[in-house]
């Protein structure tokens, strides 16, 4: 049974968390420094456009309590039941710990690691010291500092040099305690020439009231490749603040797909940073808002080195009174020559009571660039509906087909058939509602 801390968190609780997780001293100190940053950083300024559309007070944890970590579960020998695909590895995280982890023998022997951060802080100290907080450190923002101070357990996925993992590593984050503060944290390190696919799924069984503050960070070392799928299926009474950032070194590449379906009030920040020459990034986002859901998403592609490439495709579908705000930045730094960067944001509004804001931004400091971006906002094209009706489809069916077509190009990029089918199932369910 997980234990929760008393309401009203203080720095004593930081110590309690470190102790409960059995962390080494260096990590406890790291947490304490992060707590200081949390306390000293003011709430984000709402006049600045990144917080113009969302109230930061919604992510404070006055009404909820963080969960004390429990000891991480032992690695499983058997593949956990009920997996739809045949994964290379599985990690199941509940409120307090990495409860279940499993790796196919082939990958375990190759040195792939799925473990909780507390354990890794001792067993893989050098690795964790180098990469923890590197992409998203406590200084990244007030809420990022809070996650650094209070995360219980966390997950590390490490793929050693030259290992190309076949099949996805599937992580499930389940946070079901009512009135709790959840702090999922993931650190991914893809070593030189390695490859892996990670599916990272978030949900709340039982629809509890949760304030979720998630951090996903990682580095892809030279010639490495990462496919990362983030599937957000929070319940209808969850508010979520998420920060995701991957650093791509020389000749590295990443393809990230963020699918957002759940949560009542969401603020998400997704970034791929091209730090090394020839780094390549493909970022896909799919958001489907209904009811009174609120989605505020910021994406970033920052080119720090020459000859790098990025492509951002962010699609939003809204119905009922859902709202979306999208700010997307492409930044080409002074020394990044011969870069290509593309961005597209399309917003489909299905009801007159939705609102969509789109702010695609460019900051280009190097002339040797090819960069385009585009954004559209509008309803379903009535000509398209008419055409489908002339083919015998009832209006509702026609609309459904059009919405599916909107997500199609994004979802088609997912290679794993099992995952793709399951996602289509989730989307179709939502369309049918």
């Amino acid at each position, binding site marked *: 049974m997980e234990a929760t801390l008393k309401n009203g968190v203080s720095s004593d609780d930081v110590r309690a968390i470190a102790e409960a997780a059995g962390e080494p001293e260096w990590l406890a100190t790291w947490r304490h420094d992060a707590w200081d940053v949390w306390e000293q950083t003011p709430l984000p300024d*709402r006049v600045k456009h990144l917080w*113009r559309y969302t109230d930061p007070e919604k992510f404070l944890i006055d*009404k909820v309590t963080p969960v004390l970590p429990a000891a991480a579960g032992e690695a499983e020998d058997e593949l956990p039941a009920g997996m739809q695909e045949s994964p290379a590895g599985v990690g199941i995280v509940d409120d307090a710990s990495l409860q279940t982890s499993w790796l196919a023998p082939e990958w375990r022997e190759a040195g792939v690691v799925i473990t909780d951060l507390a354990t890794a802080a001792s067993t893989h100290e050098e690795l964790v010291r180098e990469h923890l907080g590197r992409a998203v450190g406590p200084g990244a923002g007030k809420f990022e500092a809070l996650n650094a101070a209070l995360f219980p357990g966390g997950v590390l996925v490490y793929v050693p040099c030259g290992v190309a993992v076949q099949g996805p590593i599937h992580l499930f984050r389940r946070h079901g305690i009512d009135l709790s503060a959840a702090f999922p944290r993931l650190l991914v390190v893809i070593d030189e020439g390695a490859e892996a696919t990670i599916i990272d799924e978030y949900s709340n069984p039982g629809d509890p009231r949760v304030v979720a503050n998630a951090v996903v960070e990682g580095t892809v070392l030279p010639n490495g490749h990462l496919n990362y799928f983030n599937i957000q299926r929070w319940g209808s*009474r969850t508010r979520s603040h998420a920060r995701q950032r991957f650093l791509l070194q020389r000749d590295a590449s990443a393809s990230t797909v963020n699918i957002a379906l759940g949560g*009542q009030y969401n603020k998400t920040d997704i970034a791929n940073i091209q730090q090394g020459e020839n780094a390549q990034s493909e970022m896909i986002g799919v958001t489907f808002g209904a*009811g*009174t859901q609120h989605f505020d998403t910021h994406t970033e592609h920052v080119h720090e080195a020459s000859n790098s490439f990025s492509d951002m495709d962010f699609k939003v579908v809204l119905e009922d009174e859902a709202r979306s705000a999208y700010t997307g930045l492409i930044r080409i730094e002074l020394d990044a020559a011969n870069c290509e960067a593309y961005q597209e944001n399309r917003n489909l509004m299905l009801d007159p009571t939705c609102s969509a804001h789109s702010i695609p931004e460019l900051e280009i400091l190097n002339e040797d660039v090819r960069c385009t971006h585009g954004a559209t906002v509008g309803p379903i094209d009535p000509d398209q509906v008419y055409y489908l009706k002339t083919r015998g489809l009832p209006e509702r069916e026609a609309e459904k087909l059009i919405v599916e077509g909107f997500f199609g190009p994004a979802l088609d990029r997912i290679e794993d058939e099992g995952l793709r089918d399951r996602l289509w199932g989730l989307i179709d369910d939502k369309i049918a509602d």
Partner: protein
Amino acid sequence: MNSDLHDWFDIAAPEEISEGDVRTYLVGSEKVAVARAEGTLYAVQDRCPHDNGPLGEGCLVGFAVRCPRHGARFDVRDGRVLSAPALVGIGTFEVRELSGRVQVAGVPATDDDW
């Protein structure tokens, strides 16, 4: 606004809002600016449609509430926009005094909005 469809929220004692005063209150899940003009109480949406300024932190001149950010003005009686830079009007809320308390009709916070 049909008060049958909404709840009455108790927000303040009448003395808290003096003549010529305007203040912000939370009514259900919405912020509302409540003003007293020529003796009568009025309630309007707090968020200025021009640039999201807080009308309740502005000032009242006659029946006009003025946004502190850029000076946009609205009639508190019907929400009508009176001056640039705002271009659209604001919503109004029913307000009454009952049993010595000021009450504003609003939509209760949903379970999702805890």
